[in-house]
């Protein structure tokens, strides 16, 4: 159950962060029109960034276990 709660917390955090970032990237004041294709592309780009950053961070932790933040 704990693992499941953590998984939900992670998914919620992901949804919130992607929404914030893709809203900022894809919607411009005065926000008249939606832009679904930009949001789709932004989500794909965010997930790729997430993967890229995970690799970089885990590589860094493994190089110097005492140096991670």
């Amino acid at each position: 159950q704990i693992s499941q709660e953590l998984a939900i917390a992670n998914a919620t955090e992901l949804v919130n962060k992607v929404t914030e970032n893709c809203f900022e990237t894809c919607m411009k004041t005065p926000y008249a029109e939606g832009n679904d294709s930009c949001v789709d592309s932004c989500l794909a780009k965010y997930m790729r960034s997430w993967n890229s950053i995970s690799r970089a961070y885990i590589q860094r932790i493994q190089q110097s276990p005492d140096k991670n933040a």
Partner: protein
Amino acid sequence: KDIMNFLEVENSKQKVQMSIHQFTNMCFKQCITNATNPELSAGEEQCLNNCVNRFLDTNIRIVKGLQNIQ
């Protein structure tokens, strides 16, 4: 059971309230550039309305997109 019910209703009311805090904070920054006039102009009101709706559009689209990935 009544207590559980009460807690659940309070909890979802509180979530709506906290979302409104978040949206107002975010959209005020985007749509309101000066505060010399305490009234909202028609343009500002429209911008606030669009801001919430586009944010919710984005949120729905992201949730659907993530469900498709899984």
